[in-house]
């Protein structure tokens, strides 16, 4: 048991890393949900695209640009941009036509979201197949970023600092954007009541588009950081983090921006703790694989006992 306690700081730190990734993906879910009341399931794939872009940048540019920090900046910008634009494109091509038709049936946009998700997965798979003939993509050695220090008995790689640093900057920027700018005000007003916002001279379509752009960019940056930290990705890598980030969003209270961050961090910690201690505590009977089962159990229990989440309110249908 003593050795377990010694492990604890390291485990908590690793949980924090995972938690920030979940938090950044969860924001995309929560923002789109806030504006459209749609679970944009394709957001998992927006994250996946970011991770693939991150890996491709390091793979193809390492030869020309030896400095890993410059590469990192390029990867973050490109990842955020491509993911954000993909999210906007998905909204234009798949979701907007549905709103134009004005279908009442809530299944229709949801099924579309799943369809988009599968198309994006296989499109990336096809492109990567044509380009490298590979399914799993591995990160190149990122040189200096792999170096590490040991602080308070915690083994920390430089890239982990970067993950936390970039996440904090992005979260700060988002808080400022939503809380302090005209765009943020417009997003919040569309989330409250699209038709009234329309009367106030706000074009809801434009705001929806921007929301997808911002959420998608956050997801893309999360993808780049994820690829850097965990080094191997595939076209299907978005599925599990996506489902868990959604759980995190529900955990924090769907539609609630600080809630998504809190939910992400909590889930990241729980999962990492479970992944480490479950095999030890059960004498190896249940392995690390069961951490995914645990995330799902949390979702179920949450829906049973606190469906509004940690910070949220119950969403009532408008009558």
């Amino acid at each position: 048991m003593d050795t377990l306690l010694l492990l604890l700081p390291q485990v908590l730190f690793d949980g924090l890393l995972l938690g920030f990734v979940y938090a950044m993906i969860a924001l995309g879910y929560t923002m789109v949900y806030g504006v459209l009341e749609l679970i944009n399931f394709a957001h998992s794939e927006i994250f996946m695209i970011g991770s693939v872009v991150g890996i491709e940048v390091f793979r193809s540019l390492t030869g020309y640009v030896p400095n890993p920090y410059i590469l990192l900046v390029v990867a973050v910008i490109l990842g955020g941009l491509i993911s954000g634009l993909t999210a906007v494109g998905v909204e234009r091509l798949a979701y907007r036509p549905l709103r134009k038709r004005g279908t009442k049936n809530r299944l229709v946009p949801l099924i579309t979201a799943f369809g988009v998700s599968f198309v994006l997965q296989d499109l990336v798979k096809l492109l990567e197949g044509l380009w490298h003939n590979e399914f799993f993509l591995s990160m190149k050695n990122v040189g200096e970023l792999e170096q590490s220090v040991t602080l308070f008995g915690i083994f920390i790689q430089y890239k982990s600092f970067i993950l936390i640093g970039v996440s904090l900057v992005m979260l700060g920027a988002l808080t400022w954007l939503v809380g302090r700018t005209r765009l943020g005000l417009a997003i919040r007003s569309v989330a409250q009541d699209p038709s009234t916002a329309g009367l106030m001279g706000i074009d809801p379509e434009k705001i929806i588009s921007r929301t997808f752009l911002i959420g998608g960019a956050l997801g893309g940056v999360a993808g780049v950081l994820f690829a850097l930290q965990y080094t191997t990705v595939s076209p299907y890598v978005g599925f599990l983090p996506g489902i868990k980030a959604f759980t995190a969003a529900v955990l924090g209270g769907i539609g609630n921006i600080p809630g998504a961050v809190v939910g992400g961090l909590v889930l990241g910690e729980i999962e990492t703790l479970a992944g480490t201690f479950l095999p030890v505590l059960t004498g190896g009977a249940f392995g690390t694989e069961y951490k995914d089962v645990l995330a799902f159990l949390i979702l179920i229990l949450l829906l049973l006992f606190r469906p509004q989440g940690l910070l949220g309110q119950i969403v009532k249908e408008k009558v």
Partner: protein
Amino acid sequence: MNRFVGAVPATARLAVTVLLLAAMGGFLALGWGAAAVLAAYATLFVLAAFPPDPRWKLAALAVLTLEATLGLASKIGGDLLFIALVGVLVLLLRLPKVAVWLKVLLGAAVLLLGIPIAGFANTFLFELGIQIGIYSAMALGLNVVVGMAGLLDMGYAAFFAIGAYTWAIFGSSQVQHFLTTWVPLNGNFVYLFMGLAILATAATGILIGLPALRLRGDYLAIVTLGLGEVVRILANNLDHPLNLTNGPQGITGITKPPIEGFQALLAALGIPRSASTDYQLFFYLLVLVIIGFIVLVNVNLARSKFGRAWVAIREDEIAAKAMGIPMVKTKLLAFATGAAFSGAMGVLFAAQRGFVSPETFTLTASITILGMVVLGGMGSVPGVILGAAALTILNLDLLKGFSEVLNTMRQDGTVLLGFPMSQLPSQVDPAKYERLVFGIILILMMIFRPEGLIPERRGSREEEA
């Protein structure tokens, strides 16, 4: 298209049909498979788009059935002519103003003569028929959940897995890994286990549905998605501490139901026999019976207070509640019913294949079944069966066929549009891109035709002529 129908005189439509059928006969006699297939499809198209008098249409369908069966029996046209038979069934379902017994007669001829004859000539077609049947049955179960009640179940394959593993574990030597003194059950227990699987999956459905169904519909989609993943993880990892599922290797040597009586019957009827086709014919007929039963259940439920309550919830939840319909209870009923169908088919699937592994029960499987319901038409029984047939054929036959063609081209060094096919990366393999195809189908259907190929029919509107 209906605007143009009137422009073509009835006699011309009939003449074209007759000509096409005659051409098809000629091509078959000459052994030109591809041409015969084209003629068959053209006939189906003409019959669908420019229908002649219903009686003539029925007669044309009968002739087409006969020709396709003869072609399949002499191994001309292969899988593609098989699809023509499915087309005949679809047109038959949509044929108005003809005595029901005539339709039933032709339908029975296709199902009980055409397809088995094709199956004897080419056992793959038997397999295809059985898989279409199993998937149709499952899609009809999901139709209750998604189509009627409007609940999005994204983990339907989880219930299929629970059913399949229930029989796989107790119907093979797998059980001895954890109950050393237990003897694997004999094949007669398959039927009992279908009942047990119904109970087990309905109970699982209620357990999962209870928390999710109290909330807005979207939550159910995510919870069922999670359930699908959990069941797959359990199937993959429950080989320790107790070896329940044998992990990723899966379970082999699963007992099939005994068919001595059936074989005796075949012998008495003088039907040609072999060890493999006996079982295939048996399972094919068993699946047909089960589908008949499930269609009956679907139709009966749709015309009862329960079916009406489901549709009411789908149309407007608040109004349905104001009519005194208990929301959670009614939704749970639909959810558990769908789960039960899937569980029962899982048992049958395990018994028929003799082998199960976690790979069968992935998210892609759940999406495939959902795709069948969406493509065919949510809530529409003939639509859902058509959707199941179309996607099963696409999945098992066309995508694989396309892959084979590409592989042949790779090996033969074919140059296509200036591109040497041998250079084509091995990752580019159509059979591995079902998700892309299903995804495109889901998106396009939702945007352009959310009601499906054969929409649910309510009210007194006369559809089609």
